[in-house]
């Protein structure tokens, strides 16, 4: 009797645990990316993000102040003193240290290191040091100090500043944001408008060859867009559109239409026949039926396709590269801008992690604003 609707299954706890596990599994990489976006490149390459949240013991290399400017005479000896922890590194404490790369934990804190010929160094746990020696020894560059340091968690917002404010081309992130919107909004609206009309015609208007047309649309769904890139660009150049916003809108429209028509048509076919026939009997034209009945009823399907199309055009790099970004350098999109921030050899993980979070901000807003239609729209046409 467990399966009767309304009564609780005794396996609820198993369901809850699996759901929790699945959610954790899905969130795990995202959390890692999020934590990484607050770390510097050196931190990312030296330790994992999971280690960043706890105080960790690590070996670091520091350098004393430059002796030539800071040394103080003390009898016939010279002394350089200071603290190896610069501003911002407070809260660290040293356990062992050394002055040679050969033995990085030779001394305990407070111990005096004998560096030969009377040259000495003392380092305290808080990072303050005193380096003492003759004129000759205390010169040139600062002495290296190898320290085993326990550092508290250290995060920075520098990456976000780089990506948003002070990237290579300072104003370009804002410019890229607006040009991405300029690409995305029309590229979402145009295919919806066209597809809604087409879907109505394919669903409710009787004309010869209708089934064949639907079959063609379904067939077009499987054609990869990469096939069309060069011929389409040639066409655009040939008829004078060139590379630009108009070209990229048309390209996105074309590539989005098959799915849009297919999805909307299947949804519209599922609307009750009686309403439409009643409207016809009352003398409504096809256009009136479309605008007054079909469109309001199809809102969930329209919204869910809008989400698909918006996300796809927002994240698109390929179509923008081919149809929008020309060699005059005046047009760009966010994705392309982010790729450029990665550097010529693409090694900047911290920028990658940060850029990922910056670029998903808008799609997240769109998704949460419209997600209640998504599930309804996904079921479009599946239940009659």
């Amino acid at each position, binding site marked *: 009797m467990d399966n009767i609707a309304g009564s609780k299954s005794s396996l609820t706890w198993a369901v809850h645990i699996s759901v929790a596990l699945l959610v954790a599994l899905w969130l795990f990489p995202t959390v890692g990316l999020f934590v990484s976006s607050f770390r*510097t*490149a*050196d931190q990312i*390459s*030296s330790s994992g993000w999971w280690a960043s949240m706890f105080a960790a013991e690590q*070996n*670091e*290399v520091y350098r004393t102040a430059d002796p030539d400017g800071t040394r103080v005479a003390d009898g016939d000896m010279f002394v350089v003193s200071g603290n190896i922890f610069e501003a911002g590194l407070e809260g660290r404490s040293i356990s062992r240290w050394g002055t*040679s*790369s*050969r*033995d*990085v934990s030779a001394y305990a804190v407070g111990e005096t290191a004998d560096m030969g010929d009377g040259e000495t160094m003392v380092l305290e746990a808080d990072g303050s040091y005193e380096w003492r020696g003759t004129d000759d020894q205390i010169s040139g*560059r600062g002495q*290296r100090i*190898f320290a085993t340091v326990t550092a508290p968690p250290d995060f920075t917002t520098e990456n976000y500043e780089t990506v948003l404010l002070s990237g*290579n081309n300072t104003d370009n992130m804002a410019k890229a944001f607006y040009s991405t919107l*300029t690409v995305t909004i*029309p590229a979402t609206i145009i295919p919806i408008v066209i597809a809604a009309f087409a879907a109505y015609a394919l669903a409710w208007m009787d004309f010869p060859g209708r089934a064949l047309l639907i079959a063609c649309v379904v067939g077009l769904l499987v054609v990869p867009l990469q096939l069309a*890139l*060069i011929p389409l*660009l*040639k066409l655009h*150049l040939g008829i*004078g*559109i*060139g*590379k*630009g*916003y*108009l*070209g990229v809108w048309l390209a996105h429209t074309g590539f989005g239409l098959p799915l849009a028509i297919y999805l909307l048509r299947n949804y519209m076919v599922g609307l009750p026949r009686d309403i439409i026939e009643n409207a016809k009997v009352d003398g409504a034209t096809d256009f009136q039926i479309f605008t007054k009945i079909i469109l309001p009823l199809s809102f969930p399907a329209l919204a869910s396709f809008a989400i698909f199309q918006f996300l796809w055009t927002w994240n698109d790099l390929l179509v923008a*590269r*081919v149809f929008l*970004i*020309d*060699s*005059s*350098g*005046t047009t760009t999109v966010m994705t*392309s801008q982010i*790729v*450029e*921030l*990665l*550097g*010529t*050899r*693409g*090694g900047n993980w911290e920028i990658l992690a940060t850029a990922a979070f910056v670029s998903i901000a808008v799609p997240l807003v769109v998704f949460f604003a419209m997600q209640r239609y998504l599930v309804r729209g996904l079921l479009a046409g599946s239940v009659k």
Partner: protein
Amino acid sequence: MNRTLKRTYFLGAAVAALVAGGAQAQQLTIAGPWIGTDEEQVQAVLDVFREQSGVDARYVGSDSFEQQIVVDAEAGSAPNVAVFPQPGLAADMASRGFLTPLADGTADWVRDNYAAGQSWVDLGTYAGQDGADHLYGFFYKVDVKSLVWYVPENFEDAGYEVPESMEELKALTDQIVADGETPWCIGLGSGGATGWPATDWVEDLLLRTQSPDVYDQWVSNEIPFDDPRIVEAIEEFGWFARNDDYVAGGAGAVASTDFRDSPKGLFASPPQCYMHRQASFIPAFFPEGTEVGVDADFFYFPSYAEKDLGNPVLGAGTLWAITNDSPEAHQLIEFLKTPEAHEAWMKQKGFLTPHKGVNPDAFGDPTLRKMNDILLGATTFRFDGSDLMPGGVGAGSFWTGMVDYAGGEDAAMVAGKIQDSWDGLK
């Protein structure tokens, strides 16, 4: 009402887009692989050109330049000038008729004004669509690959000297091991291009064990890949990379370590390794705040004292070619011949030039000058062989073959497989 407003907006935007596409007066477009800081530096050079010529030169960098330029050339929307990171792609595009030959006399100029001039002319000369050879590419900005990076203070702490010959380098390697440390950091990982750092090793070692003729014949496949002399060079690389004691992380870590991360072992505490062989661009991946010349330095990857092969230098470079003919494009190439064009980038970072007429004091950074001296003092200069081989080998089976070799496969077998893939391309 709302809908009418929207429609007007779209119409306006569409018209604006059309108009913007049409207006292009005195504009010179340049596409290249440099982005980020490199892009800022090339812009500084183009600033000088803009000022001198009044041409509105615009540079756009892309990390997928190699794909982008082919798409644009095929569709007919190519920029005026393209900067190719390797000659193979340029040769391919020349043979399909997408490049315009440089002005007459350019070849003579390069021969007279570049160190090892003839080799630069040869590297920029390809067969066009008509089958005739023309000079298509002008080399500007060169990288030197035969460098070994180290941390002078670590050498000082341990009492090591910079080796002057390959024999000394091998002795130093053994000594570091005897002292209980690890001499080398080697990383071959590079995403889809994993394996390329090993091809540089093999090329460098081939130039140090065989004459330059052998190298040239190997690159053009007149000597097969599985020739014993080539296999010997691969095994030379194995001497360094396939010994667990010689490489940080052990031989098994070589193929899986990213080349961008591997130099960081030099700066670790305690040092994970003492030496790293890599091209002149690698300081970009040193930890933040590392001062080249003080915190880290380099020496010439030495040649064998006992073999009389001089001082060979392996390098690479970018070549500029005209992809969409216009008078301004030729004007730009003329500009690149002037010492000012070279000095404008020399003042900045990461630029080396074989131009003999430039003032070496213009280098903004003494280490660059030291590198350029290595370049100018080379008895033999050879271009990165894997960039000259057909793409399927130089950017394919050679890379994967070296990963297999680093993973423990037999050198002769790997070389045989690479030769098979080359035969398959013919």
